[in-house]
């Protein structure tokens, strides 16, 4: 535990040399809740079955990412490939509260979100392989996963660019009188982009009339590619930046599934009920490189990675389950099942055909103009 609190505190603290204003801003944010919540599970009233299911999902994500990475290293996967490894607890905890009227939107690090929302691992892997059986027919690739039936609205490659979309989607959900909310994921690097600030201001403004049920989930893995938070801003208490838009916020230890579950449950309920935006900053870490082509990783030390690996989110859940008396064997079975799912996904992807060439010209326009089929 102490490791992260150390990590996360030191990260926040890195702005101590920012002068009184930043210091004040830091003080002023709501009490941080990065402390582990023993009873997160209870708060989330999840029985051990439910927890085992989340554990299964986290394992599937990790193994899925490892397999995608192998596909890239062996030249079967092209383009960019951004892995979620290390951050599993965040999306797993948040999406445990997904309701079918909700919508989810994120950036390019989107495999986990698709898997958690119920997309077929086979089709997700096929998309990453660029096959016609892929989630978006091989047209988008790893960065552009969409499965609107299951609530996933992308998958975007331009940092900051998807944030205004999510805010507009949230407006539509209330305009259309649904009880849905938007789970909008962004990274610590995206928060310095103007698109975030313009969108957050609109969310706060529209939320005044209950017209903006946006739950911002800031996945602070301390790096935007190779640039650490403290090298990107001097006001490193990122969640406090939501104060400028009248958006309340809370921090959470993003490595601890149970802490995430607890905060997520409260936040989702509140956003759904009020129609006002809310923000969660999850302190997390990607143990994977930024992208599969990020070979050097000069921007961080092996030691730092090792420190965080000690708090691997899957390991933490495992410890808790064993502690709770779940048999080692049960966990091994689950891991085996997860592996089987991923192996099948890889097999499916490898054996799937390329998209038919005439797909090149479809889906440009919604109404067959200009050579669109």
């Amino acid at each position, binding site marked *: 535990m102490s490791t992260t609190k150390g990590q996360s505190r030191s990260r926040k603290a890195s702005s101590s040399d920012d002068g009184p204003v930043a210091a004040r801003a830091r003080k002023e944010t709501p009490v941080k809740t990065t402390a582990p919540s023993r009873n997160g599970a209870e708060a989330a009233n999840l029985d051990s079955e439910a927890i085992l299911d989340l554990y299964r999902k986290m394992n599937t994500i990790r193994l899925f990412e490892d397999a995608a990475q192998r596909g890239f290293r062996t030249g079967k996967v092209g383009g960019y490939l951004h892995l979620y490894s290390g951050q599993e607890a965040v999306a797993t905890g948040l999406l445990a509260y997904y309701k079918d009227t909700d*919508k989810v939107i994120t950036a390019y690090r989107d495999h986990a979100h698709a898997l958690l929302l119920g997309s077929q691992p086979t089709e997700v892997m096929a998309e990453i392989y660029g096959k016609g059986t*892929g*989630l*978006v*027919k091989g*047209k*988008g690739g790893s960065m*552009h996963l*969409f*499965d*609107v039936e299951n609530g996933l*609205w*992308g*998958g*975007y490659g*331009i940092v900051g*660019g*998807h*944030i*205004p*979309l*999510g*805010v*507009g*989607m*949230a*407006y*539509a*959900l209330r*305009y*259309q009188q649904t009880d849905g909310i938007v789970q909008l994921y962004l990274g610590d690097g995206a928060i310095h982009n*103007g*698109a975030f*600030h*313009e*969108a957050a*201001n*609109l969310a706060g*403004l529209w939320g005044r*009339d209950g*017209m903006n049920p946006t739950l911002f989930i800031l996945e602070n893995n301390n790096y935007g590619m190779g640039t650490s938070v403290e090298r990107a801003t001097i006001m490193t208490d990122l969640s406090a930046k939501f104060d400028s838009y009248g958006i309340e916020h809370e921090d959470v230890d993003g490595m601890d599934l149970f802490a995430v579950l607890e905060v997520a449950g409260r936040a989702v309920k509140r956003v759904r009920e009020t129609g006002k935006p809310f923000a969660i900053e999850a302190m997390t870490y990607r143990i994977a490189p930024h992208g599969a082509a990020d070979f050097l990783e000069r921007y961080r030390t092996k030691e730092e990675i090792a420190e965080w690996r000690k708090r691997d989110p899957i390991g933490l859940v495992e410890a808790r389950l064993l502690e709770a008396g779940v048999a080692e064997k049960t966990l091994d079975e689950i891991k085996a099942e997860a592996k089987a799912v991923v192996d099948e996904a890889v097999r499916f992807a490898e054996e799937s055909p390329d998209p038919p060439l005439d797909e090149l010209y*479809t*889906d*440009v*326009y*919604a*109404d067959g*103009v*200009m050579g669109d089929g």
Partner: protein
Amino acid sequence: MSVMTYREALRSAMADEMERDEAVVVLGEDIGVYGGTHLVTDGLLEKFGPKRVMDTPIAEGGFTGAAIGMAMMGMRPIVEMMTWNFSFQAADQIIQNAAKLRYFSGGQVSVPLVIRGPNGGGVQLSAQHTHSLEGFYGHFPGLKVVSPVTPEDAKGMMLTAIRDPNPVIFLEAGALYGTKGEVPDGEVLVPFGKARIAREGRDVTLIGYGRQVNMLLRVADTLAGEEESISAEVVDLRSIRPFDEQTIVESVRKTHRAVVVQEQWRWYSVASEVAAILQEQAFDDLDAPVERVSGAEVPAPYARNLEIAAFPNEKQIVDAVHRALYRKS
């Protein structure tokens, strides 16, 4: 038929569609309480209320992106760019999201969005406030780009734009908001991708769009009045993407000569494409090179005399016609 201004034509199209379809909303800067800086949306707030007529902060990228999100959910937002000059701040949203979302979602998402506002210069707004962006946006697959000049087309094309399931860049002739014209009553939609023969002629084809079309019609009169009278056909492109190649090619097959006129800069522009198309598809029919008359290759100046000199004028066009007919001016 009823006579209305270009401004009123746009407003009535939006009002009609808002009446007809709850999904249609309007958002932008000062379109509500202020009434719209060009009064195009005047009265809509009173009529449809603040949930459907939304004043926004000065954040073109943010509210254009939000409108894209609304459109993804099945709403039909109309974004007002107070002027298109401000759309550079929204270029990432328009080009990276609106234009491409349908493609990179494998057809799962569509973006029924209209972005409209005044385009082009002529009232001394100088460099940062004077752009003609037909080619700039017309370059990108996934967008539709139109530029009506008559009140009739303003209404008919706005109706079409609002019902279009794709993002539409609607470039209004800002200098013409006050001009009147006959507009058919009711739902008379003007399709995209169809150019309009604004005047029939035999000797030369004058091609343009937006407010240049009015100048081309004046030039056609002048040419008809010349000693050796020249009969000019005037084609109003109306739609930049999709583009009606057939109409200009057929006209040139008849006249064997063409002059294309635009306010925008010459390099990598609409006129470049028109010349390229004509030499591709009417190579043997052309008796002279396609002449291009474009804006001066400089940022727009403020001083009245310089601004006038920066835009195409009737004399330049007449001279171009004479060159195309191998006559001396």
